[in-house]
């Protein structure tokens, strides 16, 4: 009797294990997926890609940077990944903590090793930024909600008019 009960219990345990394992695990996630906490959208690329291009990444700032030090130290994510820039249009997503971001931009990076210091600005250019829909001359403010993502943060990258950081912030000579 006990043996039969035990057999039933063992089969039930293994079945429960199998059932539990069927549920969950890593799942495919579209770039603007439901589990994303951050921003996502589309980047349109224009112009000729410079030969010295290493990558293009998207970064965000909670407050508009005032100095080159701010540009590096306040960047989110601190170590960004690249977006595929060789196509004319690319979807992207960036994981960011929930917050209000004053400046979301695409950064072009030339070949060379980043040191994560203000000196990095020599390798970086502002390639484009998300613009205020009401006044496209101004940066757009983006809100990443708690537990969610801000979608449709689209902008344009112009390889022919990459702009140095000094167009936007003050950098002291190093």
């Amino acid at each position, binding site marked *: 009797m006990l043996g039969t009960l035990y057999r039933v219990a063992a089969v039930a345990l293994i079945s429960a294990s199998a059932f539990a394992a069927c549920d969950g695990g890593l799942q495919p996630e579209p*770039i603007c997926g439901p589990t994303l906490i951050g921003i996502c959208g589309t980047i349109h690329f224009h112009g000729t890609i410079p030969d010295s291009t290493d990558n293009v990444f998207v970064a965000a700032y909670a407050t508009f940077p005032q100095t080159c030090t701010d540009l590096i130290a306040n960047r989110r994510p601190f170590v960004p990944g690249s977006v595929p820039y060789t196509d004319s249009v690319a979807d992207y997503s960036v*994981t960011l903590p929930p917050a209000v971001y004053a400046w979301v931009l695409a950064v072009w990076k030339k070949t060379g090793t980043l040191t994560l210091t203000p000196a990095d600005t020599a390798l970086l250019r502002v390639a484009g930024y998300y613009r205020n829909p009401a006044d496209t001359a101004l940066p757009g403010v983006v809100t990443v909600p708690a537990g969610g993502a801000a979608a449709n943060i689209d902008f344009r990258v112009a390889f022919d008019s990459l702009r140095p950081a000094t167009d936007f912030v003050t950098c002291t000579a190093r």
Partner: protein
Amino acid sequence: MLLLAPQQGAAQGVLRGTVRSTQGAPIRGAMVGVAGSTLYAQTDAGGRYRLAPLPSGEVRVRAAAIGYSPAARVVTLAANDSATADFALEPSPLELTPLDVVSTKLPHFGDNPSTSITQVSPEEIDRRAVNTIDEAVDKEPGIQFLNGQINIRGSTGYVQGLNSRVLFLVDGVPMNQGDRGGINWDLVPVDQIERVDILKGAGSSLYGSAALGGVVNVTTRDVPVGIHERIRLTGGMFADPPHSVWNFRDQPGLQGGGDGTFSYGTDIFGASVSGGARHSDGYREQDDQRHWQVAAKSRWQAAPKTRVDVSGAWADDRYDVPLSWCTQGQCVDLGQAYQPFKVDTGGRISWTDSRKGYVAAQARTVVSEHFAWQARGSWSRTDFFDQRRDTSEFGISNRFGAELRLEAHPDSTRTVLVGSEATFSDVTSDVFGNHSQSEFSAYGEVEQPVGHRAGGRDGARLNAGARIDFLAVDGGSLSAVVSPRLGGSFPLGARGAALRASIGRGFRAPSMAERFVNLVASEFGLRVIPNPALLPETAWSFELGGRTAPFLTFLRADGALFWTEAQDLIEPTLIVTTDGPVIQLQNVAKARIAGLDATLLAAPLAGRLTTSLGYTYLYTQRRVPGSPHTPLAYRPGHQVKLSADYSLGSASVGADFRFASRPERIELEGFVDPRRVPMKVLDLRAQWAHGPLALRLLVANILNYVYNLVPQTLAPVRTATLTAVWSH
């Protein structure tokens, strides 16, 4: 009348015999000896043993093996003569830990250990059809492997191979890498492994550095008498990703290999040689692995009282390095936020050459049944070359060790162990520099009964010991670490129920890699700078546990509450220098790891069905001055391990299920892809044996559950493996 100790006699004799199951099958790896003395031996593959020199007269000899009830008999031995004593052991799947060889460095027969010990038996290693020993150890309760790093009750976490808070021994010889302190789990061919003993909790009072969270001792197979050959062939296939958008190749990945062993032995001398190779396409993009190894072992009964063992192994691996999975934009991502089966562009054309080996020699002289000494010397070497997209790294490390140990039994109930150990490690590397580290130590331990024994039963036993280690780096000044330990076991009744308690201090000296690493961590884009001033990590470990007697005729339980208070834990720390942010390993954290480790064994259906259910609860707290307390990284709060095997005649089927909850915290969060899920893995296996041939089928992760245990590193997918073993 049964005697508890050999009678002293001037003349001596030899005892030979076999240990078999009551069904007649030879039991390999069984311990045979005289309790409370220096006299013991281990059976070979044929179940044979030779015990010498035994005092003439009546001696009570006991035989014990994992999964069997121990047996004892009184043997009368004439002076200068030999006798035969065969043992037939009753299978007893509920036998939890019949042998305690790790915690005290001494074999005990049926004693209740004072701390938790898990053992992986030869049968478990065989039926699990594993390629490396970590795959078998990973199934034991309270143990979790994180990308090759062992955690015993949450000891180590994940530090990318830069250290281990678990000490790895091969036949009692420390084998952690000389430079990084990590463990090469493929150092010993799995076919050469007799069993694995795992001590949970601090063991530094006997074993020194790295035994902070536990000790894993691999016992290799003894050389049997006669001529023996064994050939093992394996072949297998990896499943495709469960979602087509993750596909990364058109053909299924394959793996396969083979190895063989030849041995010849007499009563006086024996030697074995083995060699083998395997290849795997891997289950991810850029995951090719090639491995070959050779190993040899010899034993020599140099004198009636002296046995010499020499062993060695060399393994050579080349494996591609899928540094991290691809996140959006780092590969052809097909519109996905991440591609766990693909390597990112930065990790392409990355591979590692890894070579490691050791030679060890041990001599043991049994001066009398009361006194024995043992000496050993060892040399281990690791050599790696990492090729990355833009750079390369290399490191060559040697570790020399020597130990002298004296074992005394003033009477049949008391044991005294003292010893001294010395280790010298050096490293030559472009990322760790050229450095050396020396360790000198002395240790002692005493075990004895407390109070009176009633009815011939074992009574309570206490053991106490301490070890002092002196450490020096690059020939500099010595620093000392003292590691005391106190433990006791208290039998409850005659049916094996017992309580145990222990408290001990463990430590881990920083590895030379941690002190001197100087490189750019490509996954973070940050430089890691040296910190020669690192201090040893230390921890106090406390355990209160017990096991029940069998109940409901087929159940038995074992459980332990554990508590560890650690200081000066070494962690990677982001600091800002005048040159910008860098990572440095620092003694930053105090930590608390507490929890429950429980196992329920059941063997209904007349022992044909054996099952175990293990549950481990971990509560961890990381305490850094000025920061809020957080859980320790990479420690799942709940782990469940369920194992079942059903045997009928020469065939058996079995299953393992492992669950670990999602770790609440990982290190360097914000710098790595934070995706992580619980682990839920079901393995199925089947075995058929007939005469010298055994066939084993293993389907690991049969549900093809896709998960990761460390950031951006995919754990193995469903893998089917067929193994054929021919033994003669």
